[in-house]
């Protein structure tokens, strides 16, 4: 065996389970993320940039491993992942660590984890498995049980309180049910019931959550308090104009006017420095990811794979939509990071594990159909 063939073999082993188009877009997004994180840290310190590079490295390795796991295996781990996730959520409610007034973390001494992150993937896994098993004739009881699987963790996360994550956990599960073919009549009925429940939900919200929603209606009401984030981030994005102020030249970003500028509000930094050209490019990149995700779902060979791929793709959209909506001032401020852009290990890791699942589905289908 020559060196050339050895390298070829090795390259093949590394790449054969990766989805080419998805991989290209993800790497481009990661590169944009690194430049923005660098800019958000004032262009002076590489600490965060290296941190983000480490986050991506770890996440890509995890993605590669998951991509090499077959969908059947994914199906097998669905129940354990969900159960463990649920148990951890219950533990959080009982013994969780309180930070910033919310009980979201579990401290194991050597590592602190946020179990709601596990549920973002555990939820669609289990529901996709569930509908896969119930292939024949779905009755209302099946949907009711699916509803229970959906609402139990959602409720636990909402109670922490973590509105943003609970929306993501809920939508990930809901997308599976939607794609599985829950009839429009029930969907509409549930929608109306949900609307009716809104006033009740309003009273259940925490003061700060209500304030965030009210602030959205009129951010100027409290320019130094709750409205501050929205005002500053819209100023940043708006002042970027069409072409942007240029990398490292955003005054809003560089002068620390934007809160959470390397995490949830990184779009404000990016939008100020790269303008409409940059933000639209970002939307296009996200659309490519979504389009590719749906292609993989459509071509998937099993119900499980289809539903999982479809739901993960729609979740990805939800992340992007909620974050951009919030930073640009049309949605309330909830803690949702911008996918593949915001600084933060956990979010990038769970996002890339999701992509790993998509790639697994995309590259394992021949095996299954045979």
């Amino acid at each position, binding site marked *: 065996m020559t060196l050339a063939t050895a390298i070829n073999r090795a390259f093949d082993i590394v790449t054969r389970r990766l989805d080419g188009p998805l991989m290209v877009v993800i790497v481009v997004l990661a590169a944009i993320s690194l430049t923005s994180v660098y800019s958000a840290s004032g262009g002076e310190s590489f600490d965060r940039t290296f941190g983000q590079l480490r986050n991506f490295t770890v996440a890509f390795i995890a993605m590669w491993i998951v991509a090499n796991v077959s969908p059947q295996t994914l199906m097998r781990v669905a129940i354990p992942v969900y159960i463990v996730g649920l148990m951890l959520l219950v533990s959080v409610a009982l013994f969780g660590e309180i930070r910033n007034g919310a009980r979201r973390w579990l401290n194991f001494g050597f590592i602190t984890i946020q179990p709601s992150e596990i549920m973002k993937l555990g939820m669609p896994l289990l529901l996709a498995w569930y509908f896969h098993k119930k292939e024949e004739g779905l009755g209302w009881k099946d949907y009711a049980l699916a509803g229970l699987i959906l609402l139990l963790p959602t409720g636990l996360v909402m109670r922490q309180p973590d509105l943003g994550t609970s929306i993501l956990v809920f939508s990930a599960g809901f997308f599976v049910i939607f794609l599985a073919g829950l009839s429009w009549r029930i969907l509409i009925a549930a929608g109306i019931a949900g609307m009716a429940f809104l006033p009740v939900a309003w009273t259940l919200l925490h003061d700060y959550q209500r304030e965030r929603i009210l602030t959205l209606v009129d951010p100027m009401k409290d320019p130094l308090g709750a409205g501050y984030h929205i005002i500053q981030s819209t*100023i940043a*994005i708006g002042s970027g104009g069409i072409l942007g102020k240029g990398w490292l030249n955003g005054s*809003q970003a560089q002068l620390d*006017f934007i809160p959470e500028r390397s995490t949830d509000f990184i779009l404000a930094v990016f939008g100020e420095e790269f303008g409409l050209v940059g933000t639209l490019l970002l939307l296009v990149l996200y*659309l490519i990811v979504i389009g590719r995700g749906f292609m993989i779902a*459509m071509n998937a060979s099993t119900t499980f794979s289809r539903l999982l791929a479809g739901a993960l793709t729609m979740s990805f959209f939800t992340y992007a939509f909620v974050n951009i*909506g919030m930073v640009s001032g049309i949605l309330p401020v909830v803690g949702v990071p911008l996918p593949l852009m915001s600084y933060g290990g956990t979010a990038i890791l769970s996002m890339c594990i999701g992509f790993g699942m998509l790639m697994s589905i995309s590259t394992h289908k021949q095996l299954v159909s045979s």
Partner: protein
Amino acid sequence: MVGTAIKNREAELNIFRSRVIVATIAILIGFLILGSRLFYLQVVKRDQYHTLAEANRISVVPVVPNRGVVYDRNGEVLAANYSAFTLEVTPSKVKNLDRVLDDLATIVDIQPKDRRRFKRLLEESKNFESLPIRNRLSEAEVARFAVNRYRFPGFDIRARLFRNYPYGEVASHAIGYIGRINDGDLKKIEAANLMRNYKGTDHIGKLGIEGSYEAELHGTTGSEQVEIDAGGRAIRSLAKSEPVAGNNLRLTLDIKLQKFAEEAFGDFRGALVAMDPATGEILAFVSKPGFDPNLFVDGIDPVNWDLLNTSEDRPLTNRALQGQYPPGSTVKPFMALAALENGKRTPEFSIVDRGYWNLPGVSRPFRDWKKGGHGVVNLHKSIVVSCDTYYYGLGNDLGIDKINSFMTPFGFGRKNGIDVDGEQAGNMPSQQWKQRRFKQKWYAGDTISVSIGQGYWLATPLQLATATAILANGGTQVTPHLLKEVIDSKTGAKRSYKPPPQAQLSFKPENLQLVRQGMIDVMQPGGTAWRSAIGAGYQIAGKTGTSQVVGMKQGEIYDAREVKERFRDHALFVAYAPADNPKIALALLVENGGHGGSIAAPIAREVFDYFLLGKQPDLEKRKKRDYDLSDSD
């Protein structure tokens, strides 16, 4: 079987595809919304946001000038600045302040006192002001806070200049203090059109020299264009116009003498004003008890404030300026001079004092302080032994209006024009005054009380000192003042205090000489304060006095032993020395001290000894000094 399965799969796939199409449409709509929102922000509204972003970035911040330093006449620092770190908060930026403060207390030491003071500031201030929670943070505290700053939005550490009064209570009533600018101050600043100059300044002189020379001390505020971040923290300076520091002041006070005089009072309450009789320069300005002006700099906390305000000793009252007391027998030299100058008495004129005096046609007698009287008394003796009876007749012969017009040029009944605020005018009565004040005519009996410095006559210790100085200098109407000179902070040029034009009162030299000799002999054996002059080595001219606290019916006998301490008479003493070439003139009052000769005069002797000879006090003697129960005046 297989057929239905395939069919089912087919149907399921169809449903899935249709759902994906619906989802795709929804997603495209979603991205369209986001795209239009971004287009709206970045294209339609771009200019507006661009302006906002620019405004965000550059801020003009005031640069507060250093406040002028205050020195005593010998260059000792009385009020100076030092830089320290304070922890400040803008309350409007913080939700649930109390809880955040609890949190903060785990990092920075916050005493209940600090909280009380902060609460008070909070009540008095506008919400958007930055208020200090803790002053003078230690380096460790600054470091700890810096690490945890992200947890406390709205809180910040600032380097601030603080005022320090190194002598604490000493001369507190003369120096005054600075405190946070309140609504009243703000109105004054606005009225004086000084708002621009006070941008960024949060303290202002409130009392004493700090208050009256605010315009000199404050300086001119500079400004700096800075790039700031959202937390208001300056990132870099773009342009700067330097502030001009306030001018320094040199006072006429001799702080060592001042400290000495205050100590001489011991635990007694009272006041002392000592001045250079030639110029009116105030050498010592005592009002006991005092207060620590340093307490006010940070904004006084309510507990200390209440203590100062409700104390029976009234430490915040400036007794030297605001305490209006009946001057008692200290007015006798002035009364004697008035009678001589008006030709109502000659040096030889004598009375036989049996211990009482009757107003013609009135049976009720006016009594002398000494039972049985002083025997044959002429003008000289009347001063030496402080004979009341002599002055009853003298006053009656002069009449109140002559008394009034003679005393007013000495500064009685009007403000003396000292260069700190709050001076009271006292009261020099006249017929007109009584008509105006009480809508009553003046009775001859009213004049009799006034003749011995009681009744309607009220004087401040400052007025007594000024009058004594005028007597000592031979009639030059000096204006008492605390400022010696202003030292320009930029050029170092000195500008001396300019007194208003001084009139010269003219007296017949022999009259003046006679009165002065009487005062000299007060300090000789046979005089009311002779013990205080033993072994002085220089001549003192003085006059004792007693000021009634409790109104006594004529004829009632005052027995100090039966009167509660707070109702005892005030002891008074006026004096100058050396008698032949006066270098210092003073007036002092010891509240509830009894008689002037036994309590007040020894304090004056200590002050003279120290000022003229540099002599330290005999502490043993001072300790023994107490309230004197003997009958004397």
